[in-house]
């Protein structure tokens, strides 16, 4: 188990190398001159050249890349062009708002999604099932930024309980979390329902019933645990989806998180910040999926063997 975890952790490295190359290439392909942005709109040509030299932008691309990677590995993420603040500080400030928002959204949506999925599956073909699944389809099809705007318009504004933007008090997290998690909850509900239904047709569930086990044992011990295996993989993927969703939602609610920071940095072509943020997003995505795969081992014993 431990060696498996270690091997998987090492497996992340090549992915990160490829991603770093892609990110670097994309940023370099963006139109505009970063030295000009760094020096400011009113700077003279000499000042821009000086800035270019200072930032190492006059070096060949390979050297630039290696330098960036080298600095990155030593923990130096560079200086943001926009406000000359260290990138690490900017990310540090924005990290926790995004973390809380994502966790809140993830928590409610996975619990609700799985619960609704099992509920619908157990009442398959009845009105409860149809209702739950219709709502789920709405949740999947509705663009989340629109849901966010609706919530601001019809919940935040008239009742004044939640802020329409930013966060000042803990309660302010509710609306963005609902918005961010709605699609995930809907996807998980549908997915859990079908995974559960598939598991109910398995022979071992019939065996469990043949043993005269109680309904509760058949459902939770024999069916649900098996249904959870595919559901867990899906959850990992959904977390990645949530991260990308946060970019949009944070803009809608002006949530001072990583997504909002990314949008701002793209607007101002703040290359070091963009690069660092994308690497961070990718790493989080990979780590979460690794965690899911390791969790697998606890649920699915056959995944544990070497």
């Amino acid at each position: 188990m431990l060696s498996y975890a270690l091997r998987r952790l090492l497996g992340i490295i090549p992915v990160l190398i490829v991603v770093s190359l892609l990110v670097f290439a994309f940023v370099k392909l963006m139109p505009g001159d970063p030295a000009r942005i760094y020096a400011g709109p009113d700077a003279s040509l000499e000042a821009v050249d000086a800035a270019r030299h200072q930032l190492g932008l006059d070096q060949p691309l390979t050297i630039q890349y290696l330098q960036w990677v080298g600095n990155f590995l030593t923990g130096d993420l560079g200086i943001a062009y926009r406000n000359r603040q260290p990138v690490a500080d900017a990310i540090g400030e924005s990290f926790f708002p995004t973390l809380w928002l994502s966790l809140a959204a993830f928590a409610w949506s996975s619990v609700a999604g799985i619960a609704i999925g099992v509920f619908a599956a157990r009442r398959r073909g009845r009105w409860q099932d149809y209702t739950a699944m219709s709502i789920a389809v709405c949740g999947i099809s509705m663009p989340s930024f629109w849901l966010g705007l609706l919530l601001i318009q019809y919940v935040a504004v008239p009742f004044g309980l939640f802020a329409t933007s930013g966060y000042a008090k803990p309660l302010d997290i509710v609306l963005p979390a609902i918005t961010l998690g709605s699609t995930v909850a809907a996807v998980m509900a549908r997915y859990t329902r079908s995974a559960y239904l598939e598991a109910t047709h398995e022979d071992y569930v019939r065996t469990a019933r043949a043993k005269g086990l109680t309904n509760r044992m058949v459902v939770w011990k024999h069916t649900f645990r098996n249904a959870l295996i595919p559901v867990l993989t899906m959850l990992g993927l959904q977390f990645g989806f949530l991260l990308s969703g946060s970019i949009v939602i944070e803009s809608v609610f002006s949530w001072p998180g990583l997504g909002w920071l990314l949008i701002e940095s793209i607007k101002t072509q703040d290359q070091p910040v963009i690069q660092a943020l994308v690497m961070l997003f990718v790493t989080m995505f990979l780590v979460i999926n690794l965690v899911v795969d390791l969790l697998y081992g606890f649920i699915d014993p056959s995944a544990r063997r070497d």
Partner: protein
Amino acid sequence: MTTQNTVNDSHALILKADHLSVAFESEQGPTQALHEISFDVYEGEILAIVGESGSGKSVTSLTTMGLLPENGRVTNGHLWYSPRDGDAIDLTTLDDEQSRILRGTRLGMIFQEPMTSLNPVLKVGDQLTEAARLHLKLSARKARDEALAMLSKVRIPSPERVMDEFPYSLSGGMRQRVMIAMALMTRPRLLIADEPTTALDVTVQAHVLEIIRELQREFGMSVIFITHDMGVVAELADRVVVMQAGRVVEQNSVHDIFAAPAHPYTQKLLAAVPRLGAMRGMPLPHSFEIPGESAAEAQASIDYDTDPLLEVDALEVRFPISSGWFGRARQEVLAVDRVPLKIWPGETLALVGESGSGKSTIGRALLRLAKSKQGFIQFADTRLDNLTDDQFRHWRGDMQMVFQDPYASLNPRLTVGFSIAEPLLIHKRVPSLNKAMPTVERLLEQVGLKAEHARRYPHEFSGGQRQRIAIARALALEPKLIVADEAVSALDVSIKAQVINLMMKLQRELGIAWLFISHDMAVVERIAHRVAVMHLGRIVEIAPREQLFAAPRHPYTKRLMEAVPIADPAQRHHRPVDTQEPRSAVIPRHQQQPPYHYREVGEQHWLFTEGNP
């Protein structure tokens, strides 16, 4: 052994079906699965319910257990269960809770598929003990002791270890033993075994049957044994109920059923049963005699002095077992170990062996569906083993394959006609689908179907018909050799006999050579000119059919023959139960295997011998 086999000893009824009817609701309306069936089960007897697929035998068992799917319901009749004391209970009137408690305390069931009937995420020990803890209120400790004792009874080696294993680490035979132990944990009065040995190898089947028989006597329980295999019935049952299309057509004692079957369907079923030894004294293969359909016809004899059609030597296939992402394979499965093989034109060579013996891999390696490590392959005077894949494609037309599962081997979205025409189009034998149609229609008629079937889709056909279609497709390129990989194993007995007759007819008419891969010794005895017995990747014995069946030489061949159920209750005999896990062919990577050769012990009769000649 506490009691003798108490056939009707007490004449106490334990279960009585009285004009029981069951229907299934579907969107097309109700379908009647059982039509007023009646039968009795007495205490301490083994009642076999026999029938082909769709006969309603499984529905009968599910109704007894109260496990009918939601859309199934009892429409008529009663199912009386007699408790040890008190009045009979009608099982059809129980509510869910009563039925659940009865299942947990008085009834037990074993299912067909040992690989999927155990929960993969729960330890064997947990699955074994949960019912006893729930229903008998045993403590965890007591239940564990019980389970260990029960595992020993079903002859599981090292039960302590197995208790803490997950099912994936057990073989099919071991899992089925665990299933039996599990069903018996609560000491049921009636055990229902639904095709419990169908998915097992014949030697494993023999052990499982022996265990069921032993425990039935020891616990004095009644058993309803559901099967389609008349051989198993003859080995095990006290009485037999024959079912066809949801009706009981005949019931009688096992001796009377076999000696004097009264109903035409029973007669037909028994006639279609391949019986080991039925071909004694006939050197050539004969097709089945099917009453009212076809007479037995002999195949042509083979001149072994001519050049063989296919000659294989030292064929070797190894499958590396990889571990993890970066883990290098340290072990491999030695699937086929330096196997030699010859097939003459118009001959049927049967390759028999149990699952994992490598017989299917040989067939696949010949057609390059599996990658062989080395081996000399010569087909019709041409070396095939050193051809590139591109060059080899040309030869695929001469060697075709028919697979086991007729449901999975035809593309459901293509018409049957297109499926048959496809090889012709790929090999550019015809310019267009339209031009291929006359050939397709001729092929369909050749395999006993109708020309207009070409426009239909696979789901409109039964399993036997689909297998005919698969054969027609294999015939399209006019091959000289067809590899039939368990091609009749999934079919009901009567259908099986028809398809085998078809294969033999095609051999007589077209001179096709068959490499007939099968685990079914009785079928092989019918169809083969010569038989090769495989064990752990090697052919241990190869001989003309009659000689092999009359005088097997290799110990493994003998064991295999011994394990085949004999469809004659008069010849019932005991077999010792083997407690060993089957040996596997897993070896360290690239390990050299010791040399072996073959010794000629009779005409065309070769025996595996270790060491150099």
